[in-house]
């Protein structure tokens, strides 16, 4: 509510053309508005809105090897998917993944931000070191993780390190107990994304007024109390944003699962170990050319993401404190 009213106020203050002249200037404005907004609006309509509508119709159609709508089958695609153990498994897989990656990303990126903010000498060096993995693609990181870092043979780096402590090589990416491949999949994403969120937390930390800390120090508050009573509450909105962004991204995991566990088809290899929904949808749409079920699955996943986002947002009190 408050946001909308302030926004409306901002707009009315900022609208430069007074409407008093009416006629010519308002026609000029209308023309200019549509001229400026049309490229983006047309593009979004063709490549986002239209696909959603078309996809919705496809999801109610029997569309094997075709993207034409017509052979309507009602909710059968949805029923098929929701009773398909492979699809349900993919949802379990992504839930496990999110359960690890979301809290870990939060803790590590917040920890890094606090630690880097604390030091004076070498701060920009540390910031760069933790942030630079953000420039690396999932494909290249997967390549390093799979072929070098967690190579299951004895020349892999992790196996060399544990070998120094007398342990034999571990088959990191394979059907092992415990399932080490989760460690591989979680660490690669952690390495790639914590630097980005560290930057966001550092921006949040810098917005906390110094005076609040000074007052706490005068009151004799210890480090832990200061962190819990001052730092964390001030980072509330940032924390919520970080968790939602990592959660939404985790539900769309594809790249590292595809590249580390093997591709699709003949080279699938270890793909059966952990197949998130996007990998499942990819093979459904691209390999099986079943666009009816492929789009139905996309809508189920979208609905799930929206629900989880809303629930998590509610649980964390989204928009409660708007100071």
């Amino acid at each position, binding site marked *: 509510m408050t946001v909308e009213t302030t926004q409306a106020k901002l707009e009315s203050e900022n609208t430069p053309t007074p409407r008093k002249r009416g006629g010519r200037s308002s026609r000029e404005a209308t023309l200019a508005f549509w001229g400026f907004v049309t490229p983006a609006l047309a593009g979004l309509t063709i490549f986002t809105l239209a696909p959603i509508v078309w996809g919705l119709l496809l999801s109610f159609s029997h569309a094997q090897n075709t993207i034409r709508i017509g052979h309507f089958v009602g909710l059968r695609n949805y029923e098929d998917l929701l009773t398909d153990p492979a699809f349900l498994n993919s949802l379990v897989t992504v839930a496990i993944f999110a359960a690890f990656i979301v809290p870990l990303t939060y803790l590590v990126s917040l920890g890094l931000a606090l630690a880097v903010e604390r030091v004076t000498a070498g701060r920009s060096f540390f910031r760069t070191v933790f942030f630079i993995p953000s420039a690396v693609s999932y494909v290249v990181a997967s390549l390093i993780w799979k072929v070098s870092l967690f190579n299951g043979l004895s*020349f892999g780096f992790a196996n060399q390190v544990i070998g120094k402590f007398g342990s034999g090589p571990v088959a990191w990416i394979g059907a092992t107990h415990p399932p080490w491949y989760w460690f591989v999949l979680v660490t690669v994403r952690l390495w790639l994304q914590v630097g980005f969120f560290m930057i966001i937390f550092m921006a949040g930390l810098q917005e906390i007024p110094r005076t609040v800390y000074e007052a706490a120090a005068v009151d004799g508050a210890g480090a832990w109390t200061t962190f819990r009573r001052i730092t964390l509450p001030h980072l509330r909105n940032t924390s919520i944003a970080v968790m939602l962004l990592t959660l939404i991204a985790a539900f769309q995991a594809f790249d590292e699962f595809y590249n580390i566990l093997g591709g699709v088809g003949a080279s699938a290899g270890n793909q059966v170990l952990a197949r998130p929904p996007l990998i499942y949808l990819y093979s459904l749409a691209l390999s099986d050319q079943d666009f009816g079920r492929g789009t139905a699955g996309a809508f189920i996943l979208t609905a799930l993401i929206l629900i989880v986002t809303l629930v998590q947002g509610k649980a964390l009190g989204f928009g409660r404190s708007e100071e």
Partner: protein
Amino acid sequence: MKHHQSVVSRLLSYLVLGVLAVLFLIPFYLLLRNALMTDPQITSTRWSWLPIPPVWSNFHKLFTDPAAPMATGLINSGIIAVTTLVFQMLFSSMAGYALARIPARGRNVVFGLIVSTLMIPAAVTFVPTYAVTAFLGGINTRWGIIVPGLFSAFSIFLFRQFYLGFPVEIEEAGRLDGLGYAGIYWRLLLPNSRSILMALGVLAFISSWNAFLWPLVIGQDPSSWTVQVVLSTFLTAQTLNLSELFAAALVGIAPLVIVFLLMQRSIVEGAKFSGGKG
């Protein structure tokens, strides 16, 4: 206030950060090491820390290997990322300006429509968007990879926020000088939008260069593969030997690491724009 921080706790901070920094740099070290070694050196069970002497010929082999379309991939990725950067920034700033500053009927409806697409996660719509792009004949073409990525509701939103806070006086001065809306946008707004253009532009470039799922879906023919698709094919099909594979990966991230180090300030701004201020 915090001068009482004991020397011990300060040393501890540096120790923790130092250990973490080494851990974070290991993947880069492994990439460099392997790219400059021969295969027998890489697979040797006796670990050697440094590639001595460095095997530079790996790069030569990579670019002369007929089975490795690395040069094509680099060209494709370069064209795609630059085009995406330029046009996404142009379209987004234009729309952001109109939505923030040009009074017209239907403005709120258009804004609502654009914001509503933000609710739909992009990777999830790849199946229906693939269907539409295929229908328009975009499979195996560069434009099929590029065009759907030129329109970003999120950057439009951020540009609108930015222009809402733009001083009205500058616009009014332009109006007195006889500038219309287009003139104001081109002569006054764009030159004063350097910070946001660089911040969001460099992020658009990086994410376009690193994109994988969409180029994989659209570029099925090797002639339209991007660097990421080329590397992924090497990796999952195991068509290359290890030293060439790592040389290829190094070539694939080198342009971005350079861009990153040169533009770090803008990238930090971009991260704040897209994460913290939401």
